[in-house]
């Protein structure tokens, strides 16, 4: 068999001059089919065709592929939809379904048939995907599903976040990575779902509803990585869009890339450009928290220091008042002696109580001496009238200030004031 001439290694020019009447060349079946195949493969139109027709007798063998006949009133052609394309398909072929198929025509040599190899299959009749998308978008917008007034704010400090996405692939991993780095204080409730193909829409709806049935979820994230319009199609399915708009808690949708906007995005409380961005939008930046906490502690220390200084001035004033009163105390003592004679000791008792109060204040002051705090690098700014400066709005540029340091004081003037103290702590 091997030495027989074949179509390929015996060109016509060599065989032609040998005999006046050429002997018919005998081809093997394999050669015939190969020639037909190469002819079809060379045709640029057949390599990239769009065909509309009706699906007939689809079969789904255990291999996971799908085979069917595509026909119209006069003709039919065999079609093959392999497992990977089937998983991505917007619809699952059904008998009698009118479809538009994009694919290529090739010969299947072992059986000597040509068939349509399907790359994508979409329902015909309702027009193409873009037209259906637009029609549904208008319908749902008219029903108010996309209204800005329905958008709820995303909780700033979530404790539990629900996530619906595929358990395989990079998206789930990206989301957990972002949250581990950014805000590991949160608990994730993962509700996995198929996110592409004909079964995706009901699966996503089920996964969302499983989350909605959970208690204490603060925010829901619905996410999927990038893909073709067909890949992302389930996020344009009315059931999914309605499930998103029915979310009992704020929901963030992050599907595909920056440029992909699905109807589910419109129905969400917040649209994220990517799944990772959804995770970021759902949480505060935990890497800033140590700084924010440190700033709060410093403010508490500064406030207490100010309080102690106030108290010292109060006690000093009391002391001066007491000094002014001393002659009267002497006189009072004289009178008291008389009063004691008559059995009255009330006034003396009152004076004793006052002294005890003063002594107690002194003790408290000692324990609270600002010196230790000043030694740590804090300073107290005082105005000429001796009042402590706490609020930048109470001074103007050019006002003189005295800055008390751990050792010595500095006389200075205000250059410029910033802020009014009403800023939000966590912005």
């Amino acid at each position, binding site marked *: 068999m091997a030495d027989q001439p074949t179509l390929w290694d015996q060109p016509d020019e060599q065989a032609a001059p040998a005999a006046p009447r050429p002997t018919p060349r005998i081809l093997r079946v394999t050669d015939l089919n190969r020639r037909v195949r190469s002819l079809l493969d060379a045709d640029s139109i057949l390599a990239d065709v769009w065909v509309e027709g009706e699906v007939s007798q689809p079969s*789904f063998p255990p291999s996971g592929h799908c085979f069917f006949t595509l026909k119209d009133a006069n003709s039919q052609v065999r079609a093959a939809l392999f497992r990977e394309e*089937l*998983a991505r398909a917007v619809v699952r072929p059904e008998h009698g379904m009118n479809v538009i198929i994009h694919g290529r025509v090739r010969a299947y040599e072992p059986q000597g048939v040509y068939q349509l190899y399907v790359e994508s299959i979409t329902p015909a009749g309702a027009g193409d995907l873009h037209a259906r998308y637009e029609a549904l978008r208008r319908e749902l917008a008219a029903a108010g599903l996309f209204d800005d007034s329905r958008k709820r704010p995303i909780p700033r*400090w979530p*404790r539990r976040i629900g996530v619906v996405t*595929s*358990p*395989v*692939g990079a998206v789930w991993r990206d989301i*957990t990575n972002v*949250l*581990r780095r950014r805000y*590991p*204080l*949160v*608990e*994730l*409730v*993962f*509700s*996995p*779902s*198929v*996110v592409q*193909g*004909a*079964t*995706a829409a009901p*699966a996503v709806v*089920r*996964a969302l509803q*499983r*989350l909605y049935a*959970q208690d204490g979820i603060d925010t829901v994230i619905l996410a999927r990585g990038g893909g073709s319009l067909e890949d992302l199609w389930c996020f344009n399915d009315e059931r999914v869009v309605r499930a998103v708009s029915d979310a009992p808690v704020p929901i963030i949708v992050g599907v595909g890339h920056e440029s992909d906007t699905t109807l589910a995005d419109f129905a969400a409380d917040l649209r994220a450009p990517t799944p990772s961005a959804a995770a970021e939008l759902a949480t505060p930046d*935990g890497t800033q*928290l*140590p700084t924010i*906490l440190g700033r*709060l*502690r410093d*403010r*508490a*220390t500064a*406030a*207490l220091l*100010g*309080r*102690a200084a*106030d*108290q010292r001035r109060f006690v000093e004033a009391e002391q001066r008042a007491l000094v002014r009163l001393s002659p009267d105390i002497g006189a009072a003592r004289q009178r008291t002696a008389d009063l004691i004679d008559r059995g009255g000791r009330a006034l003396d008792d009152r004076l004793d109580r006052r002294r005890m109060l003063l002594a107690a204040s002194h003790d*408290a002051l000692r324990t*609270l001496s600002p010196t230790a705090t000043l030694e740590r690098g804090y300073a107290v700014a005082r105005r000429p009238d001796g009042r402590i400066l*706490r609020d930048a709005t109470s001074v103007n540029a050019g006002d003189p200030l005295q800055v008390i340091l751990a050792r010595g004081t500095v006389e200075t003037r205000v250059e410029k004031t910033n802020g009014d103290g009403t800023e939000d*702590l*966590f912005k």
Partner: protein
Amino acid sequence: MIDDAKLAVLTDDELAKHPFDELVIALQQTVQRLEAGSTGLEESIELYKQGLRLHSACEARLKKAELAITELGRRGVTGAEPDEA
């Protein structure tokens, strides 16, 4: 929420088990009360101590935070491959 009465009876360990956001809000409110300057010296000292406890509790929570994940449903039913339904 964490109020003064609750803070008075909680141990530091119990305090550190509270939700992080509650701890931060309590700390924030404590600082604001101190800054308002309407509290007496004794009360200010108490508030300050309270603020330090809340600050430590927040730091403790941050330090040992580990992303917790709960998964709903079964993988077999909800895997990536389309089911035959």
